[in-house]
């Protein structure tokens, strides 16, 4: 077998030692799971750019950091001060581990259970996992997962508030943080979740989130990726939807040196719907990849996606979105739109929309555009006395306005608006 990347080799070398210290070490089913994850990872290695799904995202800086030695490193984007979200319920993880001291979980309604994955692994709770055959980061996560949010909402229970989960990383760490979140909503239940990833220093964050929505369940899932500008963030979220389930995901990405937000939605029940939206704001030499796969496995299902990116300096955006409609999945509507605004001649975006349709009575659309600020509009604003810098900000805000409108929760919307405006104020 050809040699592995140095980072992959280091992971494999330290697995036996690490596994003895990771949660669930005494539990046979957990160690088997980890071992299976490691084997899958070893067979894959970290993906290089000849792997189709990773064509536009080069991981060399993560996997072979020495390869770039001697080159002048581009200056990182400015650090993002953490802007906390005031919430009654917050679960906090610091450097990959649950911090009871910083968390506030008292008073959650009956029927909502929030625990840490480390505890669940310790007491042998069996977890189901999405396929890791082709996903190196998922396999690596399975091998090394240490903690995360385990959330379950009982039948018919509705949280009339927001549950916030904050993952904070501090300081440099090469070995990575492999968080695993498992979210299960029973029939007719409903919850709003805000996932925040923040930090300072150079580290590698590899969170995996599994979402399972039973019939008539609804999850409003918000994510803020505001990692340190020196960090790597490779995230994978998998959601499965039963009949009439409603999954809404909105991701705001402003952090990390290199990030990938990969989302897979498997629509398994009739009349279920999935809405994935997001905005990414990048500058310096930041790289942000959004990769989605929406599977319509049954008839009468809906999905939509709108992603908007603002790229300045040498920033690079990637959008890969695939809608897969299975045979006999008739009466499906799937829409997808990706738009990028390039603020500099050196910023770039790569888009790859894909439709894979095996049913004949479906309505699908996709669109991808990228462009600069409208010169005519800029001049129009200036001709009324608005200075160029303010005019640019107005037009960037206007570009983002409709996608930010899709944030249904008013408090989260205010929060995301504020973060976007803060990003703009540094332009």
């Amino acid at each position: 077998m050809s040699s592995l990347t140095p980072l992959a080799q280091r992971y494999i070398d330290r697995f036996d030692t690490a596994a003895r210290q990771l949660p669930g070490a005494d539990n046979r089913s957990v160690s088997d799971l980890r071992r299976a994850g490691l084997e899958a990872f070893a067979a894959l290695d970290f993906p290089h750019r000849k792997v189709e799904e990773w064509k536009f995202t080069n991981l060399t800086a993560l996997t072979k950091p020495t390869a770039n030695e001697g080159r002048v490193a581009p200056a990182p984007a400015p650090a993002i001060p953490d802007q906390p979200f005031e919430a009654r319920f917050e679960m906090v993880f610091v450097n990959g581990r649950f911090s009871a001291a910083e968390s506030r979980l008292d008073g959650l309604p009956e029927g909502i259970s929030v625990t840490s994955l480390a505890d669940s692994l310790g007491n042998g709770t069996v977890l189901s996992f999405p396929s890791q055959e082709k996903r190196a980061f998922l396999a690596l996560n399975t091998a090394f997962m240490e903690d995360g949010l385990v959330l379950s909402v009982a039948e018919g229970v509705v949280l009339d508030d927001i549950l916030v989960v904050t993952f904070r990383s501090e300081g440099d760490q090469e070995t990575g943080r492999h968080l695993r979140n498992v979210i299960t909503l029973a029939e007719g239940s409903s919850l709003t979740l805000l996932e925040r990833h923040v930090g300072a220093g150079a580290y590698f964050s590899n969170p995996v989130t599994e979402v399972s929505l039973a019939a008539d369940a609804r999850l409003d899932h918000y994510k803020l990726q505001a990692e340190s500008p020196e960090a790597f963030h490779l995230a994978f979220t998998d959601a499965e939807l039963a009949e009439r389930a409603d999954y809404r995901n909105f991701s705001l990405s402003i952090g990390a040196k290199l990030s990938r937000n990969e989302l897979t939605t498997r629509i398994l029940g009739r009349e279920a719907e999935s809405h994935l939206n997001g905005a990414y704001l990048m500058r310096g030499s930041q790289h942000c990849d959004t990769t989605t796969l929406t599977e319509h496995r049954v008839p009468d299902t809906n999905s939509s996606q709108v992603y908007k990116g603002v790229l300045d300096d040498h920033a690079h955006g990637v959008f890969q979105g695939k809608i897969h409609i299975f045979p006999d999945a008739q009466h499906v509507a799937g829409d997808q739109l990706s738009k990028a605004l390039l603020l500099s001649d050196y910023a770039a975006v790569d888009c790859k929309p894909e439709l894979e349709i095996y049913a004949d009575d479906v309505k699908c659309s996709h669109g991808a555009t990228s462009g600069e600020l409208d010169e005519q509009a800029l001049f129009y604003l200036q001709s009324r006395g608005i200075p160029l810098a303010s005019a640019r900000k107005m037009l960037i805000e206007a570009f983002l306005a409709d996608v930010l409108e899709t944030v249904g929760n008013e408090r989260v919307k205010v929060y995301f608006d504020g973060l976007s405006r803060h990003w703009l104020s540094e332009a």
Partner: protein
Amino acid sequence: MLEIKDLRAEIGGKEILKGINLTINPGEIHAVMGPNGAGKSTLSYVLSGREGYEVTGGSVTYMGEDLLALSPDERACHGIFLAFQYPVEIPGVPSATFLKTALNAQRKFRGEEELDAMEFLKLVREKTAELGIKDDMLKRAVNVGFSGGEKKRNEVLQMALLEPKLMLLDETDSGLDIDALKVAADGVNRLRSPERSALVITHYQRLLDYIVPDFVHVLADGKIVKSGDKSLALELEEKGYAAISAA
């Protein structure tokens, strides 16, 4: 107020303005008429500071200042207002936000206090009432989905709010029916005062029935070839540009 001396400008290396001389005193309304391609729009863009137009010679002095040294927003803050031939649609920016931002930018520039949301709303409602413009326009994105007439009304509303000293009207009559034309002209006439001037650029004489100029100039091939009073406009209408330019 405005003194244009031997102004030459080119776009993409092609000379469009070939030595324009024009003086506008306070309170005067000047009309510039000319055939397509004479340089009428170029003149309005050069005066308002649009990018892509290179001034290769001459000078423009506005209230004693070198106008060409100012950025477009500075010119606006000094009281120059260009009413666009084709007002630009700006999706995602509500008209009210746009108007308030523009007004406050100009107030700030002049060292005046910015208006808060309530004060602004009161002022803008006075203006819309005066001009017979529906308030719901304020909630819509700037010019998006507006008819040609609505776009021009929006220009007039902006003019009424910003109260410029020098109004540049670039083919304000194009694409307007007679009612919309009257609204636009009425907006300009309301602002007429001994301190305020206007440069009305038009292809047809029609607009000048409603905005009566003190002087009329004929622009042909980048130069002013003839100047006169308002009767020149009628003469042009009757005889055509070719006859006048050749004369």
